[in-house]
């Protein structure tokens, strides 16, 4: 008897708890790495915390870390939707198809996919114009390299990464015609040991600037151990490696966007849209440029940042040829968003092929 009573009470309590929760807006986040990666996922989680700080008791947030890109992501997103999430942010490129698939099954749940290009009635996409930050990095890197070899740790051959490489290369080449890019595709977003190995391989082959498009701070540590190698923070400030080797950084700021979209779901005004903001809108921040960068270079970099923010300058301004020498942008022409969103080619001067 007693046990039944206990169970009944528990069931009632749980029922009450569920009703109480149902009044809250539940926001879910799917992360590709751990929240403590110090880079990409860390910043998304800062955005999640900002949502909690903004709405307090009105929201409940849930997240899942280390979700592999691909089939397993579909399971993780489905599970989150089944748990009653009203809005789900899937924060890596590889979640694109899984997000679309799950969204079809849950028409009442809103989905937001980062860095992809597929939308539907209940799937919005958002990304940041990281390539604007890469332009500034390229400018600083081209000025600071003495060996004229810049190492680049790339993750996966997707448009976002290729845009970054092109943008950095164009601006490094502009200030240093002898500059050469050595690119390693790590095929991972997060694997500190492998990222460190890649950084070491580049350094051993003469690179004295390392740009990374992977999420951990391991390349920073490898550069610090090597000594005279310049790095830039990726996705997060990575300020613990400032003032050297980290001389500046690209910082993602998702908080305003996450707050706005959560608000839209609460108000019932959520609509499918495609957001692609850059330095001007504050989605891409440039971390403090340290004093190890010569003062004139720093001034030029900051001027470029202003010009990019105001829209006066576009990071892809012609004349630019594709790698095979065919013209892409004519003198003064700027790249359209469609081409940038699907970019799959290197610009002229970069050696090697884009993997398929």
């Amino acid at each position, binding site marked *: 008897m007693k046990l039944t009573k206990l169970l009944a009470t528990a069931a009632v309590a749980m029922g009450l708890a569920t009703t109480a929760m149902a009044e809250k807006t539940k926001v879910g986040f799917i992360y590709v*790495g*751990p*929240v403590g990666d110090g880079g990409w996922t860390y910043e998304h989680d800062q955005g999640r915390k900002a949502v909690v700080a903004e709405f307090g008791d009105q929201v409940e947030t849930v997240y899942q*870390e280390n979700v592999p890109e691909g089939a397993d992501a579909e399971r993780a997103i489905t599970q989150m939707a089944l748990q009653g999430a009203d809005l789900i942010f899937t924060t890596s490129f590889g979640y694109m198809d899984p997000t679309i698939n799950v969204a079809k099954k849950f028409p009442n749940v809103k989905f937001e996919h980062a860095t992809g290009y597929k939308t539907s009635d209940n799937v919005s996409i958002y990304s940041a114009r990281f390539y604007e930050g890469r332009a500034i990095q390229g400018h600083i890197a081209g000025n600071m390299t003495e060996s004229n070899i810049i190492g680049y740790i790339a993750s996966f051959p997707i448009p976002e990464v290729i845009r970054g490489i092109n943008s950095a290369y164009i601006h490094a080449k502009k200030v240093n015609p002898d500059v050469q890019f050595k690119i390693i595709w790590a095929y991972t977003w997060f694997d*500190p040991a492998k990222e460190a*190995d890649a950084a070491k391989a580049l350094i051993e*082959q003469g690179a004295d600037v390392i740009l990374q498009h992977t999420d951990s*701070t391991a390349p*920073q540590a490898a550069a610090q151990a090597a000594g005279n190698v310049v790095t830039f923070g990726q996705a997060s400030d990575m300020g613990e490696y400032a003032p050297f080797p980290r001389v500046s950084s690209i910082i993602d700021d998702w908080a305003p966007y996450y707050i706005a979209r959560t608000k839209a779901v609460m108000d019932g005004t959520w609509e499918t849209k495609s957001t692609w903001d850059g330095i001007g809108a504050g989605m891409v921040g440039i971390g403090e440029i340290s004093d190890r960068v010569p003062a004139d270079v720093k001034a030029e970099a900051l001027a470029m940042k202003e010009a990019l923010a105001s829209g006066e300058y576009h990071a892809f301004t012609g004349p630019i040829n594709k790698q095979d020498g065919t013209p892409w942008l004519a003198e003064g022409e700027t790249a359209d968003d469609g081409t940038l969103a699907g970019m799959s080619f290197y610009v002229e001067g970069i050696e090697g092929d884009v993997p398929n």
Partner: protein
Amino acid sequence: MDLSAISPTLLIASLMVAATPLLLAAIGELVVEKAGVLNLGVEGMMIVGAVCGFAVSVETGSPYLGILAAMAGGAILSMLFAFLTQFALANQVASGLALTLFGLGLSALMGQSYVGVKPPVMGKVDIPVLSDLPFVGHILFGHDIVLYMGLGLTAAVWAVLKYTRAGLVLRAVGENHEAAHALGYHVVRVRILAILFGGACAGLGGAYISLIRVPQWTEGMTAGIGWIALALVVFASWKPWRVLLGAYLFGGINVLQLNLQAAGIAIPVEYLAMSPYLITIIVLVILSADKSAAPASLGRPFHASN
């Protein structure tokens, strides 16, 4: 393409570093499996070792104390597994998976205040004349002490398993625990000791990543190397020297393919990226043509009353 940009001495030196965490974890797991226990918690024990070693090194300023703490951390975590599987007779596969999940969570919690901290540097062994020899000096005699421990451990495990009475008992327990029990050996005690040894080795391997190879603490930094160690033990047919070969092949080709990419060699990157897995598997499968089998009692629970 510019192959001259790759320096053979630096390449070999860094492949040895890349292979060491894998070797340490795999050699520990080999002993565990030889005793008839399947511990899938290698990843969890490695990451706990990584954070314990890192934290103690930072607090005390001594990387050597950190190494000891890493071994202790891995071994303590493995005690949980030993308790569950040897006393509570829980399923080994489930307990091992749980150990990995627990280790990942625990390490994230323990490591919170160590993100972005720089660990004390471990000195390299410097043998006066030998380290200065051209070419071989840098490759063979210019490393840290843990790397040599890995090699020494491989030789020791091989010798103990093959030539000593203790090794014979351990193998007997792994092959047929009922027979070993009938002969009067303490199956459970032998297995617990093997599990602790495996935990210590995995912890050491983890600390090698956080203290020497990277060196920093980041959540989840072992990134699956524990699973590769588990696979390596199977592909190496439970033989120590093959584990060494496999670890060096895997670590070596990984470092080599990164170097080849940086040098801009004309092999498509996709093939380079998959080559470490492919080549290691092919070589070890060819070697295992002698049909060496798994320890017969592997994964089976034992209780003296049966």
